[in-house]
């Protein structure tokens, strides 16, 4: 933390500065590093189980032989960790915390102590989850969806303590994000810089705020459901037990009522990040700002009406399925419109393929495949066959990977200069980018094919299935695993780039990308309190290449007419 712009605080010491701080930027970094650490665990889990799939029964280097029970625990923890302990903290909490006060021109969040508390509860949730690996019985093995009766009853799941710790960890994580949401929404609504109207707010802030509202509105029933599940596990109540009059399908409804909006909770911030990067590196105004906001809201609203497409063959009334097919296909419309607006932004631009821009464009290219493959699954008649196959898995990795990994890398490489005051290395960045993207496709294209051929999910060994134990399918599975190994092997390049740049990268100026939004008018990195002088706003965030100006950008905080331009070029306002 450099700079003495706010000469108010005594020298605070390591603990107060980095571990017990209420500064939104520090809390953002805490979430970012915790998320990245959890990604290592989630990544290790997938390495182990994909090695088992490629070479069934063989000892996996760095792990040993994988038993059926361990396999289930690994897939469960991989999914759970990547969604709740990587995507959410990195996209929503880290970027939300870092960017919102800076982009809105204020000095911190409205409730800094609540903010600190939210991270602490989040950290506790991570500790509880990791602890579940080490309890008798090991980590929970009932999939991240945790359907009862399997998840409710230890005689069925054989991971009694792991199952309860899993539920407790997830519930704590929910509480942490509910608390975090308070800050995002109140700060965005109330603490904007003078002159910043609603449609002058950068898209990424809109997206994070909408995502927070979506999360808050959808998670309640699942919290209730989680309380019921824990009581079933610990007290022997029978909320989900048909023997006592309970209903296993109740959990599914409660879970997916949250679970579907949840994917948009993580999608919207990622799309927000991409919306910030593309204009900067095409020197072009974002196409259809208002349309993007309205379609984001529309997507959020519709997302509450699609959940049972996860349950088409679950035993729900099949007539309900017809309804959910319609709503599921309708949701593709606003999302398509959003993506088309991003593509349209490129038209007439002056495009530089910097590392952040590569990631942002790759997001669009890869997410398109994820989006269109969702149509197969939303069409109920096709889902009868594709449900619970690797086709589903490839679909959601073509959405989640762009969201959680590509979007995150776009954001990290873009805002790194602001966060750490130094520039990352472009060459290492590009090597990391290309290998990651190629490897990603090498993993998941084969899995579309194995899924179409009938590979069902959460199976540790296909040798017992004569129709699936074919050399052709096995070579596809091995290819996918090799892609994963390459993907993991290249990540150290990013880590090295990250650490080296943080420590001795070239010093970054305040606005190295010549961007418009307010965070670029603060120092790199911003001091405690962010701005030497709190800015006022005169225009929207995407005034790139304005027609009657020399510069190809026009930051939000620059007044319309400077003293030197007295003759009066008409202001935007």
């Amino acid at each position: 933390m450099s700079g003495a712009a706010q000469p108010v605080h005594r020298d605070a010491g390591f603990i107060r500065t980095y571990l017990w701080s209420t500064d939104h930027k520090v809390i953002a970094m805490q979430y970012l590093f915790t998320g990245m650490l959890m990604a290592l665990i989630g990544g290790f889990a997938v390495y182990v189980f994909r090695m088992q799939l490629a070479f069934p029964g063989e000892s996996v280097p760095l792990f040993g032989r994988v038993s059926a029970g361990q396999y289930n625990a690994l897939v469960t923890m991989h999914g759970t960790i990547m969604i709740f302990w990587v995507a959410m903290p990195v996209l929503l909490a880290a970027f939300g915390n870092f960017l919102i006060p800076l982009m809105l021109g204020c000095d911190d969040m409205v409730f800094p102590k609540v903010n600190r508390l939210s991270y602490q509860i989040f950290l506790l949730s991570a500790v509880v989850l990791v602890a579940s690996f080490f309890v008798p019985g090991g980590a929970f093995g009932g999939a991240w969806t945790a359907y009862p009766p399997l998840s409710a009853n230890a005689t069925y799941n054989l991971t009694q303590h792991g199952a309860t710790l899993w539920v407790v960890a997830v519930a704590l994580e929910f509480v942490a994000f509910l608390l975090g949401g308070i800050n995002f929404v109140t700060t965005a609504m109330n603490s904007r810089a003078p002159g910043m109207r609603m449609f002058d707010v950068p898209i990424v802030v809109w997206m994070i705020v909408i995502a927070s509202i979506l999360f808050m509105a959808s998670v309640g029933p699942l919290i209730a459901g989680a309380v019921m599940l824990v009581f079933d596990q610990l007290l022997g109540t029978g909320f989900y037990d048909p023997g006592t009059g309970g209903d296993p399908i109740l959990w599914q409804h409660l879970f997916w009522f949250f679970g579907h909006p949840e994917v948009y909770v993580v999608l919207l911030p990622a799309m927000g990040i991409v919306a910030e990067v593309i204009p900067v590196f095409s020197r072009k105004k974002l196409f259809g700002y208002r349309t993007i906001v309205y379609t984001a809201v529309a997507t959020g609203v519709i997302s509450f009406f699609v959940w049972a497409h996860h349950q088409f063959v679950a035993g729900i009334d099949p007539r309900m399925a017809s309804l959910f097919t319609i709503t599921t296909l309708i949701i593709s419309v606003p999302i398509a419109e959003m993506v088309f607006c991003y593509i349209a932004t490129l038209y007439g631009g002056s495009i530089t393929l910097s590392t952040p821009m590569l990631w942002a464009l790759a997001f669009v290219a890869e997410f398109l495949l994820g989006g269109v493959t969702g149509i197969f699954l939303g069409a109920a008649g096709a889902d009868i066959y594709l449900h619970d196959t690797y086709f589903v898995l490839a679909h959601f990795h073509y959405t989640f990977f762009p969201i959680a990994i590509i979007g995150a890398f776009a954001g990290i490489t873009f805002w790194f200069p602001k966060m750490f005051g130094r520039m990352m290395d472009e060459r290492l960045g590009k090597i990391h980018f290309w290998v990651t993207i190629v490897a990603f496709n090498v993993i998941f294209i084969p899995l579309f094919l194995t899924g179409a051929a009938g590979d069902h999910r959460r199976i540790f060994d296909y040798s017992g299935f004569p129709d699936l134990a074919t050399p052709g399918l096995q070579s596809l599975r091995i290819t996918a695993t090799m892609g994963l190994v390459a993907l993991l092997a290249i990540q150290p390049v990013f880590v090295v780039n990250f650490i080296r740049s943080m420590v001795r990268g070239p010093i970054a100026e305040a606005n190295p990308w010549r961007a418009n939004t307010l965070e670029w008018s603060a120092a790199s990195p911003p001091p405690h309190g962010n701005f030497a002088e709190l800015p006022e706003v005169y225009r929207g965030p995407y005034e790139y290449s304005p027609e009657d100006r020399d510069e190809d950008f026009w930051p939000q905080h620059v007044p319309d007419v400077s003293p030197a331009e007295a003759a009066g070029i008409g202001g935007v306002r």
Partner: protein
Amino acid sequence: MISWYVAQASSYAPDVDRLILLVGLIVGAFFLAAEFVLVWLIFKFRARPGVRARYITGEKTSEMKWVSYPHYLVLLFDIVIVAAALRVWSDVKIDLPPGEEQVRIVAQQWAWTFVHAGPDGRLDTADDIRTVNALNLQVNRLYHYELHSKDVLHGFSVPAFRLKQDAVPGRAIVGWFRPTVTGEFDIQCAEICGIGHGLMPARVHIRSAEAQAAWMATAPRMPPLPFVTPAAAATAGHQRAHR
């Protein structure tokens, strides 16, 4: 497309495959077009010295139409897909054509039990044939299945039929299929059910009428067990997934 990998062994398998092909063609065209435009724009508008980007807001109709028209097209094709999908869904899951025979399927951790109606063609009679992990069917015969679970959720899945249905404890879920080719195909459990989830493969054997009669004559008869699940005892009658 699916039929390149998996046999079509039921009367509705070709319908499902045709639906998947239809969706594939439509979304494939959109996907390729969007990717092409994306890549073309990146190339066409790469930064060149002295060339400034244009100032386009996207708020004018003449600009927005480039996005609006494609997205109306998306809506149109969505409607086409919905219509096709609901037709297939209705055939497989909502309709229940008159059945010629019944078979009961019981899923448990970690095996499948099948109760066949036997030579008299009726379930719950003395000549029922109970097997484990082997479903024995006659080609071109329309079966109603009655799916149960003894413990947790399981998923009855026969890829060659293009059929999946979760088995829910406390319920008897009814559906139908008509095998159309003879042969042997995989049965899978398609809902994670514990450590043995991957250890409960089964096979469906589809035979001609004569071969099926021969199987029934020689299959060992196991003593019929009264079939009662806890919730079935509490609530009378079946809960059907169909009207």
